[in-house]
């Protein structure tokens, strides 16, 4: 959606059509696959709770999967993370994610229970499903939102996301269609506090679909080896470099500091586009959103899409030669200096202190 700047729309200003006023409630689709729920679903329940409270409606989780005990656990967890009720479809054909049965299940639920807001994680599963369901329902879908709010005047959701390659933000509404759909990337929203006393109401819904009617078959599922995937999104300390490093060879300075700190490392979008680092190490809205305790950004100017992907960090230390670099507008601490000199100095200084700490321990 490369939307041009705000423009008049024929849909603006009109009241919500009568038949759409029946749509009530905030829903979060819980991404449960192969025995696990994705944590983005709990983050969305935390955000959905706020929206539901503001609207004065229930927050519901949608849980779809095979009729196995782990699916019950997922429903319980959904309650613990804020859902008032759970719409559950338990059917053997939902053992693995496939577009057709999940689209059919979610579409049927929406048509039966009519939520006004439907949120999904912007994962490979969530984006696959959201695009299919929004088209089926012919409603609006806004991808990769960084902020969700309610405009009480129109009772519509204001979905804010980066636009124009991440240089600006835009706020999008779905005024005259329901449900209003949005996806949010992992780690963008904060994880809500668990409450163990929750007992969500569970509403079961059938899926009227036989395995023989599904053309797509899952032949195999090759699990990723844990050790070859960067765990940027969940790291406590992240070190990253940008174009200020000057050359791909200098990226090792980032890696060396990360190694000393037991941290994850990554880089800004231009480094991926130039092929200096692989795409799964990209930090920012269009790569990985991070929420570490400490983020060290070296030679990164701080474009909007980088900012929204790193603002969840507790502390940001930015190093840049340019005192006017936008990163100094949102970092916690700044050093005006050359990353090529400061990074190795930090590596040495941290190494010395860690050795001292180890000796003391």
């Amino acid at each position, binding site marked *: 959606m490369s939307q041009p700047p705000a423009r008049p729309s024929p849909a603006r200003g009109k009241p919500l059509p009568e038949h759409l006023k029946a749509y009530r409630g905030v829903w979060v689709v819980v991404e449960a696959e192969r025995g696990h729920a994705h944590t983005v679903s709990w983050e969305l329940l935390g955000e959905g709770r706020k929206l539901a409270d503001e609207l004065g409606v229930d927050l519901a989780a949608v849980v779809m999967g095979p009729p196995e005990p782990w699916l019950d656990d997922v429903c319980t967890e959904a309650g613990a993370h804020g859902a008032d009720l759970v719409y559950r479809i338990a059917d053997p054909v939902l053992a693995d994610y496939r577009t057709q049965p999940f689209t059919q299940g979610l579409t049927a639920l929406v048509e039966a229970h009519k939520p006004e807001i439907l949120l999904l994680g912007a994962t490979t599963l969530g984006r696959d499903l959201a695009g299919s369901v929004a*088209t089926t329902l012919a409603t609006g879908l806004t991808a990769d939102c960084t902020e969700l709010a309610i405009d009480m005047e129109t009772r519509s959701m204001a979905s804010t996301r980066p636009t124009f390659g991440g240089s600006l933000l*835009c706020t999008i509404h779905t005024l005259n269609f329901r449900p209003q759909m949005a996806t949010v990337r992992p780690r963008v929203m904060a994880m809500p506090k668990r409450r163990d006393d929750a007992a969500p109401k569970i509403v079961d819904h059938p899926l009227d679909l036989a395995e023989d009617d599904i053309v797509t078959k899952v032949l195999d599922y090759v699990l990723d080896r844990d050790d070859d995937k960067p765990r940027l999104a969940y790291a406590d300390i992240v070190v990253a470099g940008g174009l200020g490093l000057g050359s791909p060879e200098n990226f090792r300075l980032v890696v060396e500091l990360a190694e000393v700190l037991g941290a994850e490392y990554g880089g800004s979008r231009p480094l991926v586009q130039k092929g200096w680092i692989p795409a799964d190490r990209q930090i920012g809205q269009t790569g990985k959103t991070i929420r570490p305790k400490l983020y060290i950004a070296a030679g990164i100017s701080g474009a909007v899409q980088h900012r929204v992907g790193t603002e969840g960090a507790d502390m940001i230390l930015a190093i840049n030669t340019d005192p006017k670099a936008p990163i100094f507008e949102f970092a916690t601490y700044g050093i005006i200096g050359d990353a090529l000199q400061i990074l190795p100095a930090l590596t040495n200084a941290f190494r010395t202190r860690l050795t001292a700490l180890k000796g003391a321990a």
Partner: protein
Amino acid sequence: MHIVVCIKQVPDSAQIRVHPVTNTIMRQGVPTIINPYDLFALEEALLLRDRFGGQVTVITMGPAMADTSLRKALAYGADRAVLLTDRFFAGADTLATSFALSAGIARLAEQAPVDIVFTGKQTIDGDTAQVGPGIAKRLALHQLTYVERIDRLDLDAREIVVRRRAEGGVQVLKTGLPCLITMLEGTNSIRFAGMDDMFRAARAEIEVWNAAKAGIDDVQKCGLRGSPTVVKKVFAPQPRTEAAKMIDVAGLAPGEIADAAIDTLFAADPDLHDDLRAFASGA
């Protein structure tokens, strides 16, 4: 075999500038390119055609000047190019975009049945990844997103086996034709287009279709009118009230700067000190 590849002409995002005073996009002089993710889709389509025979049609929806990207695709080796352009298409969100593209593809399929539709995994200007699934749904194509490899294609059995990137691993999926594939980046690299190819493409015909020619009766489903989403505002993010506290580095050597920075960090967050102590002692 007939393969359709959907492409989009996008501004080279590395070169987008925002006007410092008005916060509007400065479009003038920003070069346009084929959405880089689409090139993986195009190359995969060309590889299949080279192996199995048939033709590759590229299609795009956009302004008249989007023909530049179609010519580029022809230079790479596509056989036919269709430009969907009409004032009714302007201002389309992803739902209205998938409507127009689906109509164009359906029209192409009337002339020669379509076996596979390819798109990139997303565009670099919108980053939504919604148009591919939208087309699949509208045309009842088996949907295969984030495909990193095509393992097998059997045209007689009308079956395809692909590897699809999921969150914690890779799904190996078998499905039937026709299907829609959104291709993951890094799966191949686009072939070289030489001067001869460029010249041939420059002379080639680009078929320009308006809504009527694409078989669209209901233009209310196109463009701004057909878009359920409304952009209410576009803005630059507010600078935080507190800018970074600058660590005073005047006259300090890099080692001294590093020490000053670490002292500042440890003072601000004592937990960090404890975490690092735990890490240092091998916890």
